[in-house]
Each structure stands twice: as structure tokens, then as C-alpha cells.
């Protein structure tokens, strides 16, 4: 592949990268909010709700992302749900990731030692105060590493959106490959690009992880 092909297609590739980043960030953001809500709902004293949310998580985690996308994008119109490819992609990514985030938050809540909550109750803290000052901060530290991990996984999943014609990077690259007969070179460039992207994101993620959990190392020693 000559570089002037890349140069000629640079505008569409750059816009594709923009769509990739957009789908990733909005989709994951949606997934985080939904996931947190699901995890909170699963602690509710209402057993049908807990049961329903558990079924949702199992359903989403038990089926392939591509299948969910087809269901949303291709089968949606038959129940009156008409979405553009990009909207279906973002919502699909949000729903898919929400199940994984919900499990992470659930484990995070469970990781807060029971003794801390007992202690908070015994010194007379209000339930909302306990949630805000004890449970959430404790859970946050436990969830950051797996959340970073899942975000990285989701950055790779955005490639699947190209199959339902979301005009993200992979889609633009395949369009270029088809128009210029450079399939092999294009896919090679994609492999290198995504590998670098994931490496950079992983490194940034680990740095974020360290800074969020830094206070633990400081307070871990004998005071």
C-alpha cells in the first residue's frame, strides 16, 4: 500500500477514528451508569427486581455482542425501534458493557468489609451517610482495576460495530481497501494501529489505577 492511498483517504480514516472514540466513550459511559444502577438494584430488598436484574446480566453475558447488535439494529424495526447504525452501535455497546460493569460493581460492594459497616452503624451514622462515606469509597478502590480492564476490552469491541455499518475506523478502512484493492495492506495497518492503541490505553489505565489506589499504599503501613 502506497502512502498516497492512505493520504487520499486520510479524511475518512480520521473521521472513522473519531466515530470509534465517540462510540467507545459514550457507549462505555452508558454502560457504567447502567451497570452501577443494576448493581444497586441487586442490593434492593425486592426479590423480583433482584431476580430480573440477575437474568438481564446472565442474558447479556451469555450471548455474543454481534448477536445483540443484530437484534438491536436489524430486528429492532419489527418492534418499532428504528435506530441509525451509529445509535444502535452506541446503545448496543452500552447494554453489552453494562452487564460486565454491573458484576464489577457488585463485587466492589461485596469487597467492603462487613465490619466497617457495622462500625459505622454502631457510631450512629445514617444509612445514606454509610453508603456515601463508607460503602462507595471502599467499593471504588476495588472496582477501578477491573473497570479499566473492561474499558480496554470495550475499545476492541468497537471494531465489531463495522459489521452493522457504523462508519468507524474499521469500516472506513475496509471501504478504502475495497475501493483500492489493498485488502491485505489495509488489514495489516489496522492490526498495527489497534495494537498500539490498546497498548497506549493499557498503560494509561495502569497509571490511573496506581494514582487512584495510591492512598492505600500510604495508609497500609502501621500508623
Amino acid at each position, binding site marked *: 500500500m502506497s502512502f498516497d492511498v492512505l493520504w487520499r483517504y486520510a479524511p475518512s480514516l480520521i473521521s472513522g477514528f473519531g466515530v470509534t472514540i465517540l462510540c467507545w466513550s459514550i457507549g462505555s459511559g452508558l454502560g457504567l451508569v447502567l451497570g452501577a444502577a443494576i448493581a444497586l438494584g441487586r442490593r434492593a430488598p425486592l426479590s423480583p427486581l433482584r431476580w430480573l436484574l440477575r437474568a438481564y446480566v446472565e442474558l447479556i453475558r*451469555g450471548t*455474543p455482542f454481534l448477536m445483540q447488535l*443484530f*437484534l438491536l439494529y436489524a*430486528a429492532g424495526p419489527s418492534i418499532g425501534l428504528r435506530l441509525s447504525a451509529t445509535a444502535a452501535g452506541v446503545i448496543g455497546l452500552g447494554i453489552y458493557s453494562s452487564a460486565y460493569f454491573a458484576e464489577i460493581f457488585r463485587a466492589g460492594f461485596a469487597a467492603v468489609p462487613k465490619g466497617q459497616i457495622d462500625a459505622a452503624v454502631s457510631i450512629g451514622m445514617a444509612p445514606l451517610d454509610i453508603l456515601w462515606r463508607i460503602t462507595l469509597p471502599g467499593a471504588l478502590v476495588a472496582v477501578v482495576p477491573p473497570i479499566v480492564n473492561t474499558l480496554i476490552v470495550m475499545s476492541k*469491541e468497537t471494531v465489531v460495530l*463495522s459489521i452493522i455499518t457504523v462508519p468507524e475506523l474499521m469500516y472506513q478502512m475496509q471501504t478504502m481497501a475495497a475501493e483500492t484493492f489493498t485488502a*491485505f495492506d489495509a*488489514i495489516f495497518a489496522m492490526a498495527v494501529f489497534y*495494537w498500539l492503541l490498546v497498548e497506549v490505553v493499557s498503560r494509561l489505565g495502569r497509571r490511573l489505577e496506581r494514582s487512584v489506589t495510591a492512598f492505600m499504599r500510604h495508609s497500609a503501613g502501621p500508623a
Partner: protein
Amino acid sequence: MPLQAFFNSFGYFAQAAGVTVAVSLAGIAIGFIIGIAVCIARVSGGRWLGGLGAVYVSVFRGVPLLVQLLFIYYFLAELGLDVPALVAAVGGLALASAAYQAEILRGALNAVPRGQEEAAIAFGFSPLDTWWRILLPQALRISVPPLINEFILLLKASSLVSVVGIAELTRVSMNVASSTYRPLEAYVGGGLFYLVINLGLAALGNLAERRLAAGSGP
């Protein structure tokens, strides 16, 4: 009747589910062999082999599976090899899965207490015997639950091989959707097949976890 399109093509779906399971099984089995090799390279391969193993894991975990599959597909064509798409599909799944399995095995090896290896040496076991009789059996035992988990992930990832034209569950769901004009039934039906297979695997994983936990107690 609701879901008629699904029931009419039930045999077609069942066959496709078989293809999905077969492709995933072949992928995980070949991936296991490559995974062991990569794991050994990383654990005791010295600087060069170890580094190569680390690069392998980084590349195959870092590049999205869809890109890997298309890469292998086009790479084989570029070499002028006329191999069936199935080879590219299974090969792609195996190479990607090997990277994850190598890490699972490495983690399991690290979880075997150091004392076991030292005791084996103290008893005069040869290095090969130490590996074969002490380290590997214990590591494999620890890695069974995560390996079953990896199998579930691979089974879901295998939906991507529909892109290179393998008639597995996802591709067949697409075909049924477009031939019956009932996409909702087709995709819900296909999804149900995945769900049933994965719930079965998850139950197997739980069983294995309990069994192995029971065996390792004092």
C-alpha cells in the same frame, strides 16, 4: 404462531449450533497446545524466548479478534494458498485463545506453592519429572475453572467467524432473518442457542470448581 420462523428452521439452527461448538472446541484445543508452548517460553525460555512469548501475548490480546481473523484470511490469500475459510476461522480463534490460555496457565503455575518444587528437588526429582509429576498436574488442576471460562468467551467470540462465511449460529441467524423477513425471531432464536450452550458450560465450570476445591482441602 409466534416464533414460527424459528421452529421451521430449528434443524438448521441446531446444525449451526453444532458448527459453533465444533469450531470453538477446535479453537480451544489447538489454542491450548500453543498456549502451553507460549507459557513454557515465558516461564523458562530465557531472555529471547521469554520476550518472544511476551510479545505474542501482547499482540494477540491487543489486536481485536475481527482484525486478526480478516488478517489471517487475507494473509493466506496473499500467500496464494487456497485453503478453506474454516482453516482461517479455526486458526484465528486458536491463535487468539492461545494468548489468553498461556496467561491462565502462567497464573496457575505461579499459584503452585514454591515448596512443592523445592520438595521435589530435595527428593532428587529430575527437572523433567518435577515438571511432569509435580508442577503441571497441580497447575492444570488450578486452571480448569478459568479455562472453562475462556471456553465460554471463545464460544461467544466465534460469532465473528460468520464474517469469513462459516455457516455457524450467527451466520445462520442472519440467513434465516433475511429469508423469512422475521429478524426478531431469527436473532432471538440464535441467541437462545448461545445462551443454552453457555449456561451449560457455566454449570460445568461451577461443578469443576467445587470438585477441585473439595479435592484440595486438608
